[in-house]
């Protein structure tokens, strides 16, 4: 059995860990509120953007001349996967969930004999992927220095992707991120952004005849790159809300576990203290008896 001093030391150390995790939980909770707010505020933009693009693409008559970002390059050989993760750890299964989702997708691609290229956003994803897929990672982007998720970061990523698409370095682009459902649940998502999936919402085919100035093609070719940045921005917002949520619940668990541990250790401490006292008493009594 550990000595009384050792037990005491352990109790203090667990207690101070508990203080840290508790503080981290509070910080995450405050940040979560902000991240959720901005995710909510960012929603109208991406929704409107989506609507306009749906309207536009349904109005396009000739699929042949449609911009490549919409119709694809006609091949499906090279896949680009953009994996969005966080830059910081200690957030439970947040990063591992995205990586797991991405890895199963990569395995599927491998089986089909497709070529794979990876861009990682956030250093944690890069750390986890480079062991197995190190030679496939063509770019690693990290926004450690930006305080909040902002559109310009998303635009940077978007520009890199579009540049690579124009150089015909890949045919299909998919992004991986965590969708925020609530504090406990985040759902890893895979979303294809190039070519754009326009079939998803077909409910309002109400033949609104729009006037276009200039013509559809030109607007579309102007709009689609923006849409990519917007989609990435949306994913980044969802991700940051998810990250804080995941961290909050992870830290909550850690605090609770530390509490349990302190309880257990305290009982052990008291028990061994009592045992020591009893032992001493017995020694004294038996000493007195022998006289």
């Amino acid at each position, binding site marked *: 059995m550990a000595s009384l001093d050792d037990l005491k030391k352990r109790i203090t150390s667990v207690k101070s860990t508990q203080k840290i995790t508790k503080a981290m939980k509070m910080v995450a909770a405050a940040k979560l509120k902000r991240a959720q707010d*901005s995710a909510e*505020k*960012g929603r*109208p*933009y*991406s929704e*409107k*953007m989506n*609507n*306009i693009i749906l*309207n*536009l693409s349904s109005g396009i008559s000739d699929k042949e001349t449609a911009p490549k970002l919409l119709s694809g390059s006609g091949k499906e050989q090279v896949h680009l996967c953009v994996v969005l993760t966080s830059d910081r750890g200690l957030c439970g299964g947040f990063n591992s969930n995205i990586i797991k989702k991405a890895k199963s997708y990569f395995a599927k691609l491998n089986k089909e004999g497709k070529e794979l290229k990876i861009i990682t956003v956030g250093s944690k994803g890069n750390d986890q992927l480079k062991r197995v897929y190190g030679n496939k990672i063509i770019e690693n982007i990290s926004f450690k220095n930006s305080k909040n998720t*902002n*559109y310009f970061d*998303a*635009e940077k990523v978007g520009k890199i992707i579009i540049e690579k698409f124009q150089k015909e370095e890949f045919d299909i682009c998919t992004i991986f991120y965590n969708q925020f459902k609530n504090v406990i649940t985040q759902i890893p998502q895979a979303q294809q952004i190039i070519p754009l999936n326009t079939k998803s919402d077909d409910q309002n085919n109400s033949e*609104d*005849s*729009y*006037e*276009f*100035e*200039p013509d559809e093609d030109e*607007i579309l070719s*102007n*709009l689609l790159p*923006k849409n990519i*940045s*917007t989609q990435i*921005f949306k994913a980044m917002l969802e991700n940051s809300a998810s990250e804080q949520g995941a961290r909050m619940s992870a830290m909550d668990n850690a605090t609770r576990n530390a509490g349990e541990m302190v309880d257990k250790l305290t009982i052990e401490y008291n028990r061994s203290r009592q045992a020591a006292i009893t032992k001493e008493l017995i020694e004294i009594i038996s000493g007195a008896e022998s006289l």
Partner: protein
Amino acid sequence: MSDEFKIEIVNPEKSFLSKEDVNEVVVPAFEGEMGILKDHITIISFLKPGIITIQAKSGEEKYYVEDGIIEFKNNTLSILTSYILNLKDIEKNKLQELLKNAEEESNKPEISDQLKYLADQKVETIKSIN
């Protein structure tokens, strides 16, 4: 009453502005300035750098935008833009910074014609604010 319509300006971070009592909006559309009144035909267009002027019952407001898409439908004008500033709260040094960036961009050697045109537009607009 009857010739008022609704305007919504959103940027990626938030819903920037929403007004219900707008009489006229002039936007810097790609092929020239465009004035929009109530019952305009449904239209989609995109913007070049310039000034959006909103004539509302509550007064006139001017905004500087760098790009954007507009959609007019059912008497609602939606403007999506990634960079927008209210002319009223623009500061002198911010303006200088924007101007410097824009000029740098337009003087890049490898710039494409379209981008060059947009950058020049930006420079001109910012100068006109000054």
